[in-house]
Structure formats: structure tokens, C-alpha cells
């Protein structure tokens, strides 16, 4: 029992809470009022939670092995699910750049800009990341899902958007746990908890739609690729529809008379 509690603490709770707490500290500090910084902090926090959980489940070498880094005495092979760690690392680095650039550019139509960045990120993800059994159609679905989810998350109210992201990650975690992919379940649970804490804090606005969409789409695509051949494909795809449902639900609720 103690071993299980320690496992949950070090793989899910600590990565999520420490990352989210750092982001919250930034949003509550004077620097958090600088345009783009609150958004950057939230995006990086979610990516770091995923990266930290990933490294807790495997090791740092699983990420380094994908980079041009010499690692003597390491003859372990590359496994495709290790791309999750690399994607999280890239998002952690790119999220602040994108957030600050977006705040400086001040686009007239922010959702169009979000969609454009989402499409670029989705295309890059589809080209660079493939899980077992992924055909070009699967990768195209992942790429499109990034753009759609990015816009839906960014268009939602901050708490609702982060809540949708948390619900999506939780759905992925549940599917992974049912499918026996415990590491993916733990990583997705860490993301869900980090997003939930940021949602409760409510100061991450606008929310990092693209960063969250890339992380969620990567985790869902990973689970989809490694699912049992007899298991249905659609639940993994449907999970990425939660941000759209969250956005639509939020609009319906806002239109209701008080």
C-alpha cells in the first residue's frame, strides 16, 4: 500500500502539483501581469508535468536517446512511445515563445491566429510523431485534432478550457488504464491534475490552447497506437472531442437567462 502511494505521489501528484504551483506563483507575481506570461507559465507547467511524469515512468535517457547526444553504455532501443517525452520537452520550450509572441503580435482575430498556430503545430506533430500502426490517415486525424482542440480550448472561458483539458486527459488516463498501459495512464493523470489545479486557480488567461492540444493529442495518439488490436479505435478519438463539447456547453450556459 505504501509502495503504491509512493508511486502515485512521485509519478502523478508531485509532477502535477509542483509544476502547477510554479505556474500559479508566476501568475500571482508582478511578472504574471506581463502580457503572455501567465499563458506561457500554464503551458510550460502542463508540459513539465507530462515530462516529469514520463521520466518518472521511464528515465531521462528515454528522452536523450532521441536527441543527438552520446550515451555510453546505453544500448536500449528507441521505443515509439518515448516520443511523448520529447513532445513534452518541445512544448515546454516552445509554449513561452508562442505565448509571448502572440501577446506581442496582438492579432485582430485571436482565434484565427490560434487556429493557424494549431494547424502548424498539428502538422508538425503529424509529420514528426508516429506510433505503432499509425497510417497517414491516423496522423492526419491527430494533426487536425490539434488545431480543433486548440481553438476550442482557447475560445472557452479560462476555467472551462482548463477544465476541459483536465477532463480530456482524465479520459485518456482511464482508457490507458483499462488497456493496461499504466505508464501512459499515469502521465495523462499528471496532466489532468496539473490542468485541474490551474483551472481552480483561474488566473491563466488566455489559456495555452495549442500547448494543451499538442499534449492531449500526443497522449491520445500514443494510447491509440498501442491499444490492443481487438480494442475499439473511436474512444481515443472521441476523447479529443471533449474540448469542443466543453466550449459548446459553455456557450449554451452563457446564453441561458439568469
Amino acid at each position, binding site marked *: 500500500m505504501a509502495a503504491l502511494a509512493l508511486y502515485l505521489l512521485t509519478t502523478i501528484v508531485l509532477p502535477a502539483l509542483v509544476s502547477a504551483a510554479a505556474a500559479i506563483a508566476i501568475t500571482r507575481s508582478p511578472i504574471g501581469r506581463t502580457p503572455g506570461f501567465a499563458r506561457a507559465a500554464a503551458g510550460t507547467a502542463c508540459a513539465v508535468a507530462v515530462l516529469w511524469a514520463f521520466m518518472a515512468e521511464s528515465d531521462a535517457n528515454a528522452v536523450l536517446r532521441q536527441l543527438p547526444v552520446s550515451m555510453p553504455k546505453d544500448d536500449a*532501443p528507441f521505443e515509439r512511445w518515448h516520443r511523448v517525452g520529447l513532445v513534452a520537452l518541445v512544448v515546454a520550450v516552445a509554449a513561452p515563445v508562442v505565448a509571448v509572441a502572440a501577446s506581442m503580435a496582438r492579432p485582430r482575430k485571436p482565434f484565427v491566429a490560434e487556429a493557424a498556430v494549431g494547424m502548424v503545430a498539428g502538422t508538425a506533430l503529424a509529420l514528426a510523431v508516429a506510433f505503432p500502426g499509425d497510417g497517414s490517415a491516423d496522423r492526419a486525424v491527430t494533426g487536425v485534432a490539434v488545431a480543433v482542440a486548440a481553438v476550442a480550448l482557447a475560445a472557452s472561458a479560462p476555467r472551462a478550457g482548463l477544465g476541459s483539458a483536465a477532463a480530456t486527459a482524465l479520459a485518456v488516463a482511464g482508457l490507458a488504464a483499462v*488497456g493496461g498501459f499504466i505508464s501512459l495512464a499515469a502521465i495523462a493523470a499528471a496532466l489532468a491534475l496539473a490542468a485541474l489545479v490551474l483551472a481552480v486557480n483561474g488566473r491563466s488567461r488566455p489559456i495555452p490552447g495549442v500547448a494543451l492540444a499538442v499534449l492531449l493529442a500526443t497522449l491520445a495518439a500514443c494510447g491509440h497506437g498501442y491499444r*490492443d488490436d481487438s480494442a475499439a479505435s473511436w474512444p481515443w478519438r472521441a476523447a479529443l472531442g471533449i474540448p469542443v463539447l466543453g466550449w459548446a456547453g459553455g456557450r449554451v450556459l452563457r446564453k441561458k437567462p439568469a
Partner: protein
Amino acid sequence: MSSLALAFQRPTEPPAPVAITLDPVHSVALFRIQHLEAGLFWGRFNALEGTVQWDLQPGSVPTFDVTAKIANADTGSEKLDQNLQGPNFFNAKEFPVMTFKSTSAANAGERRWKVKGNLTLRGVTREVEADCVATGIGNGPAGAKVGFECTLEIKRSDFGMKWGIEKPAKALGDDVKLVIALEGDAQPKE
């Protein structure tokens, strides 16, 4: 009695090189691992394939080339089998087979050998040593049948299968015992 079996009983005759093609129905690998520091849990890989080269002479040594399909892992629990196929354990989607190819063998008694070879699992190849014995030579409907049994112990962490050893701590053991039972049809080499 087949000519192959006769050859075994007449060691003064020149050895007849024989390729023994494994019969998947009667070839299986059992694996044993400790669960939660308590029970020793057994599972199996059904339908092993491959060949053994041996001239059936008591003093000569065999060479083994055996393949197990990860999809044939069988624990008696559908849920557990599914878990074993995933990336936390065998990662069958990327590494669908486990192979053992012997590189040398030394006599260790009558029809017993210490066999060294390369075990490849999850894309990692490590040298291992197995205790092997020829369990018998019999006659089947299609000719001579030869049986072997090999036992070896490995650390699964050596092959990158680390889940459950430290995280979660001691959920599953690191030491794995393998008992490999082989039976094949002996065919004289042409």
C-alpha cells in the same frame, strides 16, 4: 525403430547431422516471476518455433535457434495477457518476437549441456547461459521425435523491462526463471 534412433544407439557410426524442426504444439516456454514479493507466478509462451541442430550422438552438442511470438504469451488471464503485450512489459507492437540463438555448448553430463547463447528481448540482446538436457528420442507417426528441456534465469531489467521493480516498488520481481520445453521432428540434413 527409426534409423535416427538407431544412430543414437550406435555411437561408433559416423554422426548423422540432423535438423530438428520444432513442433509448435509441443514446444512451450514457461516463465516464472514473483508477484508483490509473495507468490511465484507462472505464465507461458505457447507455440515456440525454430530448429535444433544435433547429430543425436551423446557426446556431441546441439545448437538452438528458438523463437517465441510475444502474442502467444498466456497467463490464463485475458486482462493480464493484454497488459503483458503493452509497452510496460513486452511492447509486442514494436518487438513482436523473443529469440534465443545458441553460440556454444559444453557437455555437462550424459545428454546434458551448458549452452551459451544470445537472448533477444524487447530489442535488447544479452548473452545468457542455459542448462539443457535432451529429454528423449522417440518415434512419432512421421518419424523420430527429439525432446529437450532448458532452464535459465534472467533479470528482466537487463532487457529494459523495468516497470514494477522500483516503480511501483517491488510490485513484480526482477528475476525471471524460464523453463523451455522443446519437441521437434528430426530430419536428416540433405
